[in-house]
Every structure is written in structure tokens, then in C-alpha cells.
């Protein structure tokens, strides 16, 4: 005698349940009274095991630890599984899911309009190294003050696993397709084009990824992080250089980074001789642990050399690869107005005929 159940309170629209709201009792609240769970987005629809979910989790953790106010963050992306990531973190932030390869244009426009937000661009290797390569080059060159993340899996995940332009020569996807071309290395490209913060990391290694995200968010200027983020469904074979196994085995940190938020700056001291401190513009700091190779991330040529040297040996150089704090960003170069455009009044936007005449006179 098995009677029917009462109707469920929540109609499950997806095949799986919502993530329960219960959290562990010792979970901390941050400076603005939020817990890490308050920085979550909607429940992921990516494949279980996709590296991209770990990137979302790392961003959530990074933002919570930094006490970022969600409404002061803008998330922008293109198209691809990776470009879906912004849905899965900071549901209370602003967001724009644009068209394939066009995240840089939208990010540039938004950033020009409102320089006071944190910009987090999330893209994929297909989105940024194929269809959007041109846009990528120009946003780097234009020094937009933002954090640009490429979730790099060496494949077009969303369209079911074609090789992408970041796939290494000889790497093979699940369908057996082998890459016949040399890869585009997004990190060296970014350094080459003038990015002032360039790092590489691995979705599986949050210890490394989270401080890099925090440093990238705090850095003033264009910060780029190439995150190896395995596509568990189409490109996680033993013969793929972008799979979990190869990345775990071959990623080597050129430098180990700790991020010290502004408020702790005074109290946290670094171990002289073992660490190097880089103070960022907002007062926070990066502590670089020496890893035995005396890597100097402020030297551009040295950075390129190390990345290539590692690649030759089948290794993936990770960590903070390059940083330059003296580069001016777009707003400084163009001497733009101090305030977000939406805060300007009629008087400032339409200063009248006298102001127009004054401008015209400067061209006479």
C-alpha cells in the first residue's frame, strides 16, 4: 500500500536540486558582514568536474576574502562554457554576457563609462584566442583597468570539443583529434602587447589561483590570468596537455604568491630574504616567496624566457609571471573625467556655447 506523496513545495525545474542554504557553523563573515556563500551565483549547469566551476569557486572565495561589495563588480563575458562562469558567482554584481569574442569591446565601453567598478572579464580560449583574438590584442594594448580571465581548456567545450588555438602541438582530444599547429600562448602574447599584470594558474590549484585573482583585482591596469581549466568531457585524456593529469604533473610555479589585503598591511610582515613584497596601488601587497630559481617577475624579457624554456621541456610555467606597476591605464593616458559618466549632471555634459567656442578656439 504505497500512497502518493503530497505535492512538493518546490517544483524542481532542473534535474538536480538547489544547493541547500545551510552552511558550516564556523563560517566567517567578512568586513561587510557577508559570508562566502553570499558571493555565490546560480547553481552551475556545466559538466560535473569542469575546471570552470573551480574558477567560479576561486573567484567567490577571493571576492569574499577581499570583502568586495558585489554591487561594485561588473562581470563581462563572451560565449562558451567558460563565458557562462559569471552566472555562477556574485549573483548580486552587474553582468553582461556578450557575443562570441566580443567581451573586450563591451568591457572597454563599460570601463570608459564607469571607472569606479571592478571589472572581471571571463572568456575562453576559443572566445579569446580564435574569434576574439583581435579584440583581445586591442584591449591589452589599450590598458583597460580590469581583470581578464581566460579559462583555458585547449578546446571549444560548448560546441563539443573541437581543438582550439591554445591546444599544444600533438595534444589530443577525446575524439582523437590531434593538434597539428603550434599553440598561441595567451600569457606571452599579453606580456608582449603591454599587459601590466600577467599570471598563469590551474583551476585545480586554488591555493595558487585565489591570491593571484586577488592581486589581479587589486592591480591598477590590465591584469591577465590564463587559467588552465580542464574540459572533463572533451579534453581530459592522458594525451591532452590541458587535462587534469598533465597539468597536475607539469605545472611549475615560477613564484609563489601571497596576497595581503590593505587592512592587514601593517600587521603582516614578510620574511626578509625569503620573500619579496610588492605594494599595489590600492595599498594591498603581494608577497612573493622565492622558489629557488630567483625568478624576477618585473623583468619582461626574463619572463618570456622562462615561460618558453619551461614549455620546451613540456612544463607549464605558472604563478605571477610578470608585473609592472608603472604603466598608466587608459583613463590616465586619455585624461578622462574623474567621475563615472552616469554621475555627471546636465551642466557638465552640456556646458553651453561659450565652452564650445573655447574648445573650437584651441583648434584655430
Amino acid at each position, binding site marked *: *500500500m*504505497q500512497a502518493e506523496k503530497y505535492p512538493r513545495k518546490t517544483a524542481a525545474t532542473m534535474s538536480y*536540486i538547489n544547493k541547500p542554504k545551510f552552511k*558550516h557553523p564556523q*563560517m566567517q563573515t567578512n568586513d561587510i558582514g557577508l559570508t562566502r556563500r553570499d558571493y555565490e551565483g546560480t547553481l552551475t549547469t556545466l559538466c560535473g*568536474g569542469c575546471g570552470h566551476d573551480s574558477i567560479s569557486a576561486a573567484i567567490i572565495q577571493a571576492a569574499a576574502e577581499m570583502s568586495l561589495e558585489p554591487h561594485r563588480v561588473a562581470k563581462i563575458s563572451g560565449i562558451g562554457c567558460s563565458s557562462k562562469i559569471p552566472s555562477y558567482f556574485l549573483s548580486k554584481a552587474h553582468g553582461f554576457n556578450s557575443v562570441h569574442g566580443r567581451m573586450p569591446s563591451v568591457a572597454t565601453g563599460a570601463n570608459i563609462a564607469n571607472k569606479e567598478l571592478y571589472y572581471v572579464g571571463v572568456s575562453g580560449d576559443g572566445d579569446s584566442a580564435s574569434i576574439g583574438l583581435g579584440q583581445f590584442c586591442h584591449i591589452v594594448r589599450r590598458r583597460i583597468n580590469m581583470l581578464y580571465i581566460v579559462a583555458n581548456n585547449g578546446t571549444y567545450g560548448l560546441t563539443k570539443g573541437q581543438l582550439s588555438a591554445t591546444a599544444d602541438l600533438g595534444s589530443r582530444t577525446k575524439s582523437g583529434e590531434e593538434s597539428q599547429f603550434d599553440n598561441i600562448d595567451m600569457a606571452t602574447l599579453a606580456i608582449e602587447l603591454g599587459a601590466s599584470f600577467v599570471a598563469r594558474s590551474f583551476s585545480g590549484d586554488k591555493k595558487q589561483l585565489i591570491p593571484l585573482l586577488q592581486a589581479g583585482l587589486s592591480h591598477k591596469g590590465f591584469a591577465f590570468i590564463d587559467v588552465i581549466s580542464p574540459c572533463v568531457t572533451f579534453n581530459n585524456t592522458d594525451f591532452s596537455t590541458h587535462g*587534469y593529469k598533465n597539468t597536475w604533473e607539469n605545472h611549475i610555479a615560477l613564484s609563489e604568491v601571497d596576497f595581503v589585503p590593505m587592512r592587514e598591511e601593517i600587521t603582516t610582515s614578510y620574511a626578509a630574504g625569503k620573500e619579496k613584497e610588492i605594494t599595489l596601488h590600492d595599498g594591498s601587497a603581494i608577497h612573493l616567496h622565492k622558489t629557488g630559481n630567483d625568478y624576477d617577475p618585473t623583468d619582461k624579457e626574463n619572463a618570456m624566457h622562462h615561460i618558453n624554456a619551461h614549455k620546451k621541456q613540456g612544463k607549464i610555467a605558472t604563478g605571477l609571471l610578470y608585473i609592472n606597476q608603472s604603466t598608466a591605464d587608459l583613463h590616465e593616458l586619455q585624461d578622462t573625467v574623474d567621475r563615472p559618466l552616469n554621475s555627471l549632471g546636465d551642466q557638465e555634459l552640456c556646458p553651453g556655447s561659450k565652452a564650445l567656442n573655447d574648445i573650437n578656439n584651441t583648434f584655430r
Partner: protein
Amino acid sequence: MKPTDIADPDYFHKVVDCQWACPAHTPVPEYIRLIAEKRYTDAYMINWHSNVFPGILGRTCDRPCEPACRRGRVEEEPVAICRLKTVAADYKSDITDLLPQAPKKKNGKRIALIGAGPASLTVARDLLPLGYEITLFEKDALSGGAMRTQIPRFRLPAEVLDEELNYILDMGVNCRFGEEITSMRDILAEGYDAVFVGTGAPLGKWLDLPGHEEAKDNIHTGIEWLASVAFEHISSVGKNVLVLGGGNTAMDCCRTSKRIGGKEVSVVVRSGFEEMKASPWEIEDAMNEDIPILNFHVPKRYIVENGKLVAMEFEKVRKEIDANGRRQLIPTGEEPAILPCDDVLCAIGQENSFPWVERDLGIEFDQWEVPVLNKSTFQSTHEKVFFGGDAALGPDNIITAVAHGHDAAVSIHLLCEKQDITKRPNPLTNLSSQKMGIHQWSYDNDISADFRFAVPHADKQVTLNDINVEVELGFDEQLAFNETMRCLNCDVQTVFTDKLCIECDACVDICPTDCITFTQNQKEPKLRTNLLAPAENDEQDLYVSDLLLTGRIMAKNEDLCLHCGLCAERCPTNAWDMHKYLFNTAKAENACQS
């Protein structure tokens, strides 16, 4: 740390907090799921096999399961486990066909049970189906022990009590009720194969203060007085009643007084309100019936006028913690409190007592006159004599008496089968995957975020005027269903296969309570603090895997897991799977496993 051995029957059992905490290890989440499916009879039978008195316990159990319930850690209030048991009992259909039968042909062994409380009745239940001939001695005219004589009918209706007692008695017990045993020697002389003593803790304590002798007629021990009310030897009490003591007996005394003529009924306790031993819900029920509880009042004397008790004097005190961290009650120096009273009920404790057990029979007692027992077999120093329930370890509760009864029955069966009674039978366990599809499980993992539902009560005007009207109405089916949805299914275990793990972090990222950490192996205390959600409860073991590809281990804090199955849903390789763990203690029928 060493990798966890999940084949150890205790490992996953501990994760089912309620079942682990239940002295009889009732498979709680299993029956809660059955209630959700309206399979009340099945839910009832699961209970009946474990705790023998589901309808009684649903109303009266001390509920050690509830403070243990996981829901209390991750939300606020435990699942109303106990009251759901009542639902199973109240909504079930006729179960007589499902009960075991005592075989016509007996096995030739004769067992005497002394005292017809829950401990003895459990032994009877377990041994009757195996062909034993059971003789049950009881000094009262009816069976049930303290369940009948102490627990008032407004908490436990007579029909519920009789129904569940009869399930056992109807199997064919040789009842010798109304027969008080006055000599163990005589019983042993009757040549039983084993004797089980389940005589409870029948000795109430007096408060011998000045004035006691003169006021004697109006001073009662709580337990004797309650028994007299139960057997209708007493049907009224004075207008002003003082109940001394802060335990459950005091709560039953004051509530009973209110129903048989007490107008001004107060409970008076020596120390603080917070230190009262009574269950919070019993205190709440008494307070709902407008019974004041006066704390920090130390009784000094009975005041008698014209040979009759008229009041009691109390010294007012306050609490202080001394240098050794011990609580001290320091007089405040205020005027003593004089509280008028016509009757005083002393509910300050009870003891087991065995004046009828001769001390030259080989049954040893310790310095406190408590029988010397093996704590797992319940055998005394006399091979054939066993003790259980309150008689064994002092006053406790029904569910503990039941648990003792089961264990003693196992011992008696092993003894009669001439086996080593210290070799305890293994529990019956089963671990099976609940996976039905990628996102489908054979249990409902979509738990509700609702707070605990309160059990509705009958109208106070009605209950206070009739001692036999049950106060709690119980959950209706909809409320019961809503409450079942709060259960986290802690018996559906996360099982980890290290060989399959690719360390993608999918489980770590999805887990709502941060149970899972991949980290370097370390010593347990360090590992416990280094987890994403530190594991503070040392009673709950960590789930630790062998070394993974990266040389790290998976370490899981079982204490906070919601059993939501999301880790298993997100895992791309099935390294995580959800397995239902059924655990039942071995009963006498499973005792001879070889």
C-alpha cells in the same frame, strides 16, 4: 592518518547521529522516509523491532536522538524524531499479522522475568519467538512497570499502553501478576534456566527535615504518589501543593496535582532553573499549565500548625562558582520564604533496592548496593541471573531499559545454547548504492529549509479538567510530512573510491557545508583544524582516503555533511556515490551466528 575503514560497522553508524545516540539504535531516517511515503505500518514495524514500544516511546521517550540530530548543527532545531514515531503508531493499520509468533513446540527452556516493566517485556518479546517458556512475575495487578504507574495518562493514554503490552503478552506469557517476589532463593529453587531481574528503581527518596514526623500524612514521595494516582487509590490533593525537585518526576507530579484538585501548585528547586534535570519540553509543558518554578530555594523545614502541615520554609540562595570551578549555593541573607502548602510531593530521586535478593546466592552487590554486572551481557556474578533496566544501572528511561532487554535476551539465548555469552553477535548491516540516474537518487535529497514544526496541543481547559485526556494531539498527516522533509537522510552515506578520483575539485566546490578537503596527509589533530570546515567534534571520525595522484588525501568532515548527494552528482567519475547504510543491532534471534 590511516585511510578510513568503512567496513567497520561503527564507522557509518556514527554518521547517523540519531541512530547512534539511540540506546536501541533505531534506524531513524529509514522510518522517517517511510512516513513521508505514508507507509506508516512499515515505519511502525521498523520501530517495533528496534524499540518494542513505538507508540509509547513516541509520546514519552527521553529522546537522546534529538540533541544528537545533525539538523541541530546545520540549522537550529533537531527533527521531531520522537513525535514522528507517534505518527507511525497512530496511522498504521492492523499489524497483528506482521508480529512474530511463538512456536507451539517449545524449546524446553524456562525463563523467569521479575517485574513487568519495559526491560522484562523486551526480553520476553525477543525470547518468545525462539520457543522459550516465559514466566513473568509482577507485584502489581497489571503490566507495564513505571510506564503504567509513573507516567500519567495525559501523556500516555491507557489504550496505547495496553495495545503495545498486549502484542507481547499475547504471544503467550505465563503471567504471575499480583505476586511480589520476596526471595530470590525461592525463584532459583523453581529451576529456571535463567532469571532476569527487571524490577526498576522503586525506592523514592524522602526529604527528612524538621517537622517531617508531624506532617507525614501530607508528605509523599513522588513515585509512590504517582503510582497511587495511576491505580486510583488517590483521586484528590490539597489546594496548595509544593513539588520539590527539578526532574521529570517533579513535572509529572505538578501536572498531575493540577488535574486532581491542586489550585496553587508550585515546583521548588534548590539550584538554578538552567540546572534542572527535567527535559526542556516537560518543563515547557508544565509552565504552559501555569505552574511556577521557583529556583534557588533550599528547603529548611515543614511548618505544622495544629498537627497539620500548613507551609514550608525555604532559604534563598544564589549561585557562585568557587576557586575549583564548583558550583556553590550561597545564602543571600534575605528573609526565608514561607510557602503555604497542604501537600508536599518529594520528587528528589529514586533508587533501586534489592532487599529480597539474599546475599549468599553468589549474586554480588557493590558498596552502593548495586548489582555487579558485566555491562555488555548484563550477567550478574551468578551465571543464570541477569539484571536490566533501572534495576541494573539505576533510574534511567524506557529506551535504555529496552536496549538492556535486547542485550540480556541475547545473553540468555547464548547461555541456553551453551555458547560463550561474551562473544556478541555482529550487527546486521547493508550498504547499497542509491543511484538511479545522473541526477536521480532513490531517496529525496531535496531537503526542506523549514524550521521544526510544533506538535499541536489539546485545549488546556479540557486537559486540565480530565487527567485521562492526552495533552498532545500529535501531528496530522500534512504536518508529519512537512516534518519528515526536514530529515537529512544521514544514513545515505557518501562513499569515496580513491582510485577513481581525478582531483577536479567538483565536490569541494559544490559542497554546501565545505565538508570535503583535499590536502596533505597529517596527524589527526592538525588535519581536523586544517579542513575547510574544521572538524571540532572529536566523537565523529574523519573520513580519510588513501593517497591520491597528487600525493594528497581526501579528508571529509562527516559532522556537517547534509547528505544532499551534490558531491556525487557533480563527480565526473563516480568517485563519490551515495550508499544507504542500514544498521540493526543483533537480537536474540540473530545471536547464534556460527
